[in-house]
């Protein structure tokens, strides 16, 4: 007997909240479909009515978690149109904040993965450590989430020597904690048992479905815009692209933890080699007619902004392709032949989301058409029950 399950309509942690419609047979998902548009605010239209400078603050509010990567992408594009180049110190600070944002986003995601796997202490741990990064970001920019540090032609704030040493000190704490998570993630038998083998996406599928970011990298596709098409100063920074071959949610967790380590290295490199000089140059207000495509590597994957200028101080068109959108197709593929109980995990795996709003799931009986409503928390309870059944590797060292 087949059931149709709509999930949604709201998945607030995504930039595009969606409704999922799944056809299930027993516990197994046979088909999945998506509906978008619940969080549609009309930002692209709004952008056409605002000047380039105002649009920085608008693009920042596309998403609260990777706000800096959206402004970076936008500012890079507009700087190309305006033909200004940010001074080196400004660029270093811009990408310093970008890496700090990656750290906060990945820590956030780790917590969510732990939460969805039924491992709430992990969630609380990572979120506690995330506050360290939030403090650094607040000291640099003055705000915890929307940093508003980018401006046309550089950044808006400088950091001083005291702050620089403070960030370097905090890195030590974060490094130690991340090592611990790595051990925990790789050794804790119930956690590994819950994540391994869930939501498989083969390398071929990842390529065919154009997955991006950690989702693709966990399937063995070593794609990272920072290395493949270096923007800003990434060409001169040494770092590795982390991949995993297990193609499942465990792989995605491992990739993100490894990327945390790489980000710490990048942050350290940027701080140790911070050049002197101004942080911003003055940029003209009007851009010559033209168009530009700007890409950057957001915490979740490749982010693309297309900007068309018509000679005025406002863009004629702004088009944003956020990484989550690119990963939808891959998510749907992964949901197929999975279990209902795995939906939270598979879904959370593409996106470092902290969706707190509970989504309701409506189970519609395929024959009678009578809907029964299942809450997200029930889904999680099912997930927890399934986790109890998976065989656990015994005698593995569990650090604590």
């Amino acid at each position, binding site marked *: 007997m087949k059931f149709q399950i709509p999930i949604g309509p709201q998945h607030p942690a995504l930039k595009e909240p969606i409704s999922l419609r799944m056809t299930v047979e027993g516990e197994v998902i046979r088909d999945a479909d998506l509906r978008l548009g619940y969080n549609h605010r009309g930002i692209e239209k709004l952008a056409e*009515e605002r000047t380039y400078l105002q649009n920085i603050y608008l693009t920042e509010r596309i998403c609260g978690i990777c706000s800096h990567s959206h402004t970076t992408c936008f500012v890079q594009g507009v700087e190309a149109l305006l033909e200004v180049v940010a001074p080196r110190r400004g660029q270093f600070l811009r990408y310093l904040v970008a890496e700090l944002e990656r750290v906060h986003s990945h820590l956030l995601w780790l917590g969510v993965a732990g939460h969805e796997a039924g491992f709430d202490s992990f969630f609380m741990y990572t979120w506690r450590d995330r506050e360290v990064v939030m403090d650094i970001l607040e000291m640099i920019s003055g705000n915890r989430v929307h940093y508003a540090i980018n401006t046309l032609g550089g950044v808006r704030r400088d950091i001083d020597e005291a702050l620089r040493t403070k960030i370097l000190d905090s890195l030590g704490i974060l490094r130690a904690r991340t090592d611990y998570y790595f051990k925990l993630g790789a050794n804790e038998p119930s956690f590994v048992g819950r994540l391994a083998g869930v939501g498989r996406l083969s390398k071929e599928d990842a390529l065919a479905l154009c997955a991006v970011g950690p989702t693709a990298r966990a399937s063995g596709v070593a794609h990272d815009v920072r290395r493949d098409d270096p923007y800003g100063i990434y060409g001169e920074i040494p770092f590795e692209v982390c991949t995993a071959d297990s193609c499942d949610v465990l792989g995605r967790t491992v990739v993100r933890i490894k990327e945390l380590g790489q980000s710490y290295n990048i942050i350290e490199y940027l701080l140790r080699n911070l050049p002197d000089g101004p942080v911003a140059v003055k940029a003209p207000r009007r851009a010559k007619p033209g168009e530009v495509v700007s890409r950057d590597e957001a915490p979740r994957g490749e982010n693309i902004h297309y900007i068309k200028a018509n000679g005025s101080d406002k863009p004629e068109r702004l088009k944003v392709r956020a990484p989550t959108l690119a990963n939808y197709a891959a998510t749907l593929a992964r949901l197929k032949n999975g279990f209902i109980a795995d939906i939270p995990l598979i879904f959370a795996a593409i996106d470092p989301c902290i969706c707190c709003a509970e989504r309701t799931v409506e189970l519609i009986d395929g024959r009678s058409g009578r809907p029964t409503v299942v809450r997200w928390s029930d889904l999680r309870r099912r997930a927890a029950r399934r986790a109890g059944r998976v065989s656990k590797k015994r005698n593995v060292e569990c650090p604590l």
Partner: protein
Amino acid sequence: MLKRLVRWSRIKSPWILHLNSGACNACDIEVIAALTPRFDVERLGVLLKATPRHADVLVCSGPVTRQMKDRIIRIYEQTPDPKFVVAVGACAMSGCVYRGAYNIMGGIDQVIPVDVYVPGCPARPDAIIDGVVKLLGKL
């Protein structure tokens, strides 16, 4: 007597439902940050609930997109009385940067009555806690 007991328990342990109506997510992660160890509102008896039927306080963020409008009203109606609404963030108050966009209503108070407004873009976790405390003080 019973009334006093109910009032006491309501003040001591407000259960909240977090509702996103098209927010940019930043306010939402700050609401969650308020629940995690640094701020830890659970020590004050505040619990995040899964369903509106269990909640006393709706913590809403976002400018209310047209798609979400009816759903918010439905969720509000599902919440048992007495219910309170806290609007978190500039968007929930007035629409913030999205003001003027074609798809938003421009604030939670356009669709449901609001008791407390917490400003900020995003509102800090401390501010959100303060908002809830002010609300409880009014009871």
